[in-house]
């Protein structure tokens, strides 16, 4: 495999960003998840796509995509009648549309697995997963009747819980 100088620098930058995010997570400080996209809008994603935090930690989403709007919206029946994919006791959240450089923060108190998505880009697979603490397993909601299921690109987008816990941060390839 041949690595170009740019590739090495990009890889180095990614590792450094992951290192900073892990330091912030370890210190209990707010951790940023960037909303990103290619200039022509052909690809959009959360960066990182998987994040492991402590109970009580705050996560801040920031729109770093100059040409698009994004949301960070939890899967929950109270928000757009979606299947619940956050802990039963947890509060759902919805950032609403964030314009470039706008941010939204949410504090995660309940241990468990939280799946969320970007409203205009769910069908393009723009989803993310946050693992809080060390949950025993992925909780599956029972009340799915009448609720809107996830499209296939979204279902295929979540990193495994085990990988997030092991690495702390999972980025898009």
């Amino acid at each position, binding site marked *: 495999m041949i690595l170009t100088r740019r590739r090495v620098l990009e890889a180095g930058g990614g590792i450094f960003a992951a290192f900073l995010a892990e330091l912030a997570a370890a210190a209990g400080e707010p951790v940023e998840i960037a909303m990103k996209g290619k200039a022509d*809008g052909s690809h959009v994603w959360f960066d990182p796509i998987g994040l492991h935090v402590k109970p009580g930690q705050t996560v801040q989403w920031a729109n770093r995509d100059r040409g698009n*709007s994004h949301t960070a919206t939890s899967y929950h029946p109270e928000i757009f009648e979606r299947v619940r994919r956050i802990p039963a006791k947890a509060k759902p959240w919805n950032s609403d549309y964030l*314009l470039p450089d706008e941010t939204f923060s949410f504090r995660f108190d309940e241990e468990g697995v939280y799946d969320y998505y970007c409203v*205009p880009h769910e069908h*393009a697979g723009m989803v993310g997963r946050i693992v809080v603490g060390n949950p025993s397993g992925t909780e599956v909601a029972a009340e799915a009747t009448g609720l809107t299921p996830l499209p296939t690109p979204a279902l295929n987008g979540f990193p495994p819980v085990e990988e997030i816990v092991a690495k702390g941060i999972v980025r898009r390839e």
Partner: protein
Amino acid sequence: MKLVPAALAILLAGSLTALAHDVPTEVAKSPPPGAFKAVSSLVKLPDFLPGMGQLFVDPASLPGGPFLAYDHDGALVSTIYMLPVKDLNPDKRFEDLAAPGGNVDHVDVYYNAGHPGVEEPHVHVVLWHVAAADEAKVAQ
């Protein structure tokens, strides 16, 4: 006879100028008239989209469009159609889409993951009314 080439040159120059600027007056400058609204006034999107410009659309024409795109000086640069990927199938047709922007210099077709207003993967069909080199006017 030098008069003939000179006359031809003047005639050609006049024709090319006319071609390059043959944009219907009513849509040449932003905002376009009638039912066209700024996209940023209809949905939460930046007013100027890098790579496209300031967009206007008649809400009744969504999601296909046409969207009229203008540069920072308010000059029309392109007409854009946004066609959902799921609608490109044997049972769906997009017919008689309006094309109010006049002469087309070249066309781009590319995939877009979605954005407020067209919240699903779709294809952008861009009819550029300016030369490829002038796309830079809406790059940033």
